[in-house]
């Protein structure tokens, strides 16, 4: 285990799982909305950014951690709801490409608002910084936040599976994801299904904001943007047509980035994005419908 590729040890693997868990949460948030609306929400990272600024403000005001989390959740949910009514609803009849470009515009809009409001230097969010302390198990140091991220992601996944499989609204969501207009004809309430999916994606964005601010506490207007780009790539690579494959895609790209980040020689680590996105292109060329997608559902051309 010596030399430049010595880093494939337990430490790297666990950190990579932690990164994959955070990305998986974002992937669920993006995949849920795509499932019911066929809409790729590029502005998802800006929801995370808004939540992170809420946390930064609450730590500036010396609020207790729980109050910061409540503020973060309310800000993100309010913004998600507004986005649903003002942007997603009028765009529903458009092609996926138009919707993607529109959310691209919303993303830049929100980022510019944050730039004017908070400036480009950013604010620190420190109320949960204690989670950065490591716990030593054997000879591996695990930061508490890594454990929290993995546990939170697992809990959300289980809760979501239960919701989708065991409740009426979950059944409606799955029906809407397969064939929206037929589902409506059969009595599924479109607005309620969409609102539920969008709000759950907002809760996930708030959770991601909390996890990411612990790992990198300086919140800037660009916070969450690069992660969103990576997760979007991961979600498409995994396969957008099913929530499970999208989630697996998000997890995989986080996990692989984490492993590669540990494995690249120190002098070359700045090229990590190139390696990751190079892999994305290669995988897309081999499996354009997604690695984890079922075969035979893609476009003809």
């Amino acid at each position: 285990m010596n030399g430049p590729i010595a880093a494939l040890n337990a430490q790297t693997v666990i950190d990579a799982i932690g990164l994959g868990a955070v990305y998986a949460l974002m992937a669920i948030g993006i995949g849920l909305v795509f499932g019911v609306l066929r809409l790729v929400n590029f502005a998802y990272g800006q929801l995370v950014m808004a939540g992170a600024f809420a946390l930064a403000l609450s730590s500036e005001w010396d609020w207790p951690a729980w109050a910061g989390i409540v503020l973060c959740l309310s800000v993100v949910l309010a913004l998600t709801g507004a986005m649903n009514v003002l942007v997603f609803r009028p765009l529903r009849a458009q092609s996926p490409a138009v919707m993607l470009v529109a959310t691209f515009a919303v993303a830049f809009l929100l980022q510019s608002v944050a730039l004017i409001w908070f400036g480009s230097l950013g604010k620190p969010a420190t109320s949960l910084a204690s989670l950065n302390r490591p716990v030593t198990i054997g000879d591996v140091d695990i930061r508490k936040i890594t454990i929290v991220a993995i546990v939170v992601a697992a809990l959300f996944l289980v809760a979501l599976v239960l919701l989708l499989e065991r409740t009426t609204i979950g059944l409606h969501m799955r029906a809407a994801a397969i064939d929206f207009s037929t589902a409506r004809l059969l009595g599924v309430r479109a607005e309620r299904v969409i609102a539920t999916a969008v709000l759950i994606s907002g809760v996930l964005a708030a959770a991601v904001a909390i996890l990411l601010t612990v790992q990198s506490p300086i919140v800037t207007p660009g916070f969450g943007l690069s992660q969103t780009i990576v997760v979007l790539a991961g979600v498409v690579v995994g396969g957008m047509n099913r929530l499970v494959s999208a989630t697996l895609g998000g997890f995989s790209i986080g996990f692989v980035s984490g492993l590669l980040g540990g494995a690249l020689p120190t002098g070359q680590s700045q090229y990590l994005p190139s390696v990751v996105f190079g892999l994305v292109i290669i995988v897309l060329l081999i499996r354009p419908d997604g690695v984890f997608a079922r075969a035979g559902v893609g476009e003809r051309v």
Partner: protein
Amino acid sequence: MTAHLERLVAPAALVAGAALLGTTVARETQIYFITALLAVTLVVALYVFVGNSGVLSFGHMSFVAVGAWGAGVLSVPVDEKSLIFPSLYGFLGDTTVDNVVSLAVAAGVGLVYAVVVGLPLMRLSGLAAGIATFAVLEITHNILRYWDRIGPGTNSFSSVPETTGLLQSAIGALIAIVVAFAYQSSRFGRQLRAVREDPAAARAAGIGVVRQRVWAFGLSGALAGLAGGLYVHFIPLSTEDVYLDLTFITLAMLVIGGAGSLWGAVVGALAVSALDSFLAEAESGIGIAGATLDLPSGSRLIVVGFLMALVLILRPSGITGGREFSLAWTGRMRR
């Protein structure tokens, strides 16, 4: 085949008019006109691919970037290179070319890069194509930013002769318009538009989908490279100038104008540039009709983002409706 020459003349005249108007204003204001003309080149370059193929590309700023890098690195005088870029590769380090050659290099590099990238990528469509072109942008940005043997790395370009003025930017925009018009009137352009309308039917009619897309992608890359070359001769570029913000503003111009037509691309570029210049002035405070308008800096992207979202929601085919310029006004009125 009717040539519909007004579809070439109208956008070209609009650009020429903007350039002529630019000659009448003060030097500080001229900057805005040059920026607008460069935007036309850039948006028309993007239009050649996106408009004709209907496939979204987030990766075109990569071709702008490599064009800028090619022209920029080769234009810095040799004796200054050892100071500014100490670690350039030998050939790049001891060659300097003149202005026109550097622009040709920019277009050439853009063409080659776009064809190399396009050959594998053009087999994709829909979201996979969008994400793959995004990946190309990320890779290009990442490599240009950290590989200082082929350019300034994390620094900005400096000592590149500032040759891009009103004349060159206008010529660049006109070249882009003529090329775009010639392409879309050609057999290749028509075949690609057929693919856009109905891929399965076009393929059944014997059109090579991938080959037509690669043609358009390469041509579009060449024009984007030319735009990059013109940019680097205009302002001291860095990798951040040819990344997400420029991708956004260029797409916004194309979408606001109407991605379906050359007329839409030119109108969108000029209209958004005009608005953007006005807002830039307003950010430093201007007086209108006795009142002073003073916007906080950064409001430009807010307004453009808002406008783009608004156009997409209310009129998704853009302000021109994605139609070419037409002299048959009365005919349209009657409809």
